[in-house]
């Protein structure tokens, strides 16, 4: 590591990344907007009045100490929040201008457009590698012209193709943890989502696999909106264009600050953000 203070080095990493990104891709407009999101488990409010825009073709990192509502927030975005007994929410999530919580919305269509990668790799144990990748098509009853092409494309984009192309018939559970997680990413890509939510995708992986997944995220980010929850600040600095800092001070979680990743790590506006990104607490 460098002898520079942590903030400036992370800020530097993020700034360089941001500038090269702006040069190479065109920001296409707002893909997903969260408007005044509140969330409850039973009577306990865990998330209060959170509004955040996610631009197409960008990566947004959500950082903050455990229990500040990051995971709950991204689960409200693709309506997975409602699976937890006692869960409630208020606010709007607009996908291309349409509220995903509007009455009469087909929730399965929403989840097709907003894919999700979970904290723990969870390939389907009864399916082979290729069946896992294509599972979304069967689950959502989608038709594709050429399954083999899609299979190769998704595994390629997830950075797994060269490692598994000779054993596509093996069971998903036979892969290593990092490969399983990339298999899960490939599985999410097969239904062609516009947005990909990643809930601490590297928290159970070793540094080598983490690096591979970060490369995958960089590859994907030019074509889709990615929102990643992470506890690893280096990771946030390396992969994200924007960073939002969440914090719960005893009560419900709130967003303290959001901005380009370089600014959050080098010139945060809020004292609490600075304390967190410099490792003084959390």
């Amino acid at each position, binding site marked *: 590591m460098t002898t520079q203070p942590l903030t400036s080095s992370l800020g530097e990493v993020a700034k360089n990344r941001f500038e090269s990104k702006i040069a190479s891709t065109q920001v296409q407009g707002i893909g997903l907007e969260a408007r005044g999101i509140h969330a409850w488990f039973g009577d306990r409010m865990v998330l209060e009045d959170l509004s955040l825009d996610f631009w197409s073709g960008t990566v947004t990192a959500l950082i903050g100490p455990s229990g500040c509502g990051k995971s709950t927030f991204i689960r409200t975005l693709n309506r997975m929040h409602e699976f937890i007994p006692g869960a409630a929410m208020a606010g709007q999530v607009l996908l291309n201008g349409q509220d995903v919580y509007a009455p009469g919305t087909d929730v399965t*269509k929403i*989840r097709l457009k907003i894919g999700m990668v979970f904290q723990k790799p969870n390939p389907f144990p009864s399916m082979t590698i290729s069946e896992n990748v294509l599972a979304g098509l069967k689950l959502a009853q989608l038709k594709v012209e050429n399954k083999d092409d899609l299979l190769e494309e998704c595994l390629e984009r997830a950075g797994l193709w060269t490692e598994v192309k000779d054993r596509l018939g093996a069971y998903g559970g036979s892969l290593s943890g990092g490969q399983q997680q990339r298999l899960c990413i490939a599985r999410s890509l097969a239904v062609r989502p516009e947005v990909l939510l990643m809930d601490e995708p590297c928290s159970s992986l070793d540094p080598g696999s983490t690096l591979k997944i970060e490369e995958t995220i960089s590859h994907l980010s030019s074509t889709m909106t990615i929102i990643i929850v992470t506890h690893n600040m280096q990771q946030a600095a390396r992969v994200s264009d924007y960073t939002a800092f969440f914090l719960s001070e005893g009560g419900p979680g709130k967003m303290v600050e959001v901005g380009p990743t370089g600014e959050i790590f080098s010139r945060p506006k809020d004292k609490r953000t600075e304390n967190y990104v410099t490792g003084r607490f959390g």
Partner: protein
Amino acid sequence: MTEKQVVRPQKPWQSSPRERFNSGLVLLAGLLTSYVIVAITPMKGKLAYFSLFFLAFTIYDFTFHYFTRGMALAKDAIARAFVALGITLAVAPIISILATVFIRGYKGIHLSLFTKDMKLNSVSDPVNQGGLLHALTGTGILVLVALIISVPLGILTAIYMTEIKGRFVRPIKFLVQAMSGVPSIVAGLFILSAIVYPITKSYSGFVGALALSILMIPTIARTSEEVLLLIPNDLREAGVALGGTQWRTVAMVVVPAAKSGLVTAMILGIARIAGETAPVLLLTGGGDSVNGNPFSGPMGSLPFYIWKAYAVGTAESVTRAWAGILILLVIVLMLFISARVLSERRTSK
């Protein structure tokens, strides 16, 4: 470089030959005491030997440990003696049953048991005449029909309890548990009064299978529920997050992941009903010839054959009954073993 010393694996915590010799002495003393007391007192019989030996051994073992190792280990010895007594009392009857069935039954086993029925013979004929074919096919058909009815109902009930988690989960869970304790004769009488008397007015394999289903559904539902509860929630969330409806997620992800466990549930259900006698006596009408049609005519079965042959009471018929019991027991044991093997393969995966 010096020669490397070879270190051999040792188990210093195991008892030494001397300690083993001492515990052998304690055992011998217990046996001797029980023998002497039976010889000089009016207490007689196997039970007297057994209980006196247990008492004497416990006292000697306690005393021995007390003087050599102290109070704590002496108490440990007593606890160990009672545990050994417990498993002996639990296992002895099972071993005894198995031994009796085998000793009495093997005399009645011959090859034509599996190729002939009792159409032309009575149970009092010499043992090597006639056979069990009608009973085996009958039990097979009863089990098959009961399976066709119970597997979908049982698994759907389990899916309601673990996946849909509707408002009625608690009452249904309670009902299923209570149902698994329903006496089989109650199931038989229910079908008799609800279906046979008012509707079909005749005995058949099918009505017997209906009664057996009443007994089978709770077993399958409870076992399947336990199996489905073991499936991690991550998989359900992954399925739904890929745009699957709940039903498609359950059918394509959850049930395939639980497949071997559900097969185990099925096998346990079969083992539960294969030997059921009361509903079969009430509903199937017996029958001595092979009947492949569950919807008409009397249908034989192993429990019915055993009951019928034993009731006649001649030496030949009783031997036949024991042979039938032996075959039934072997079938049920094989089912349990295959269920066990399947579920072990599941946990080791």
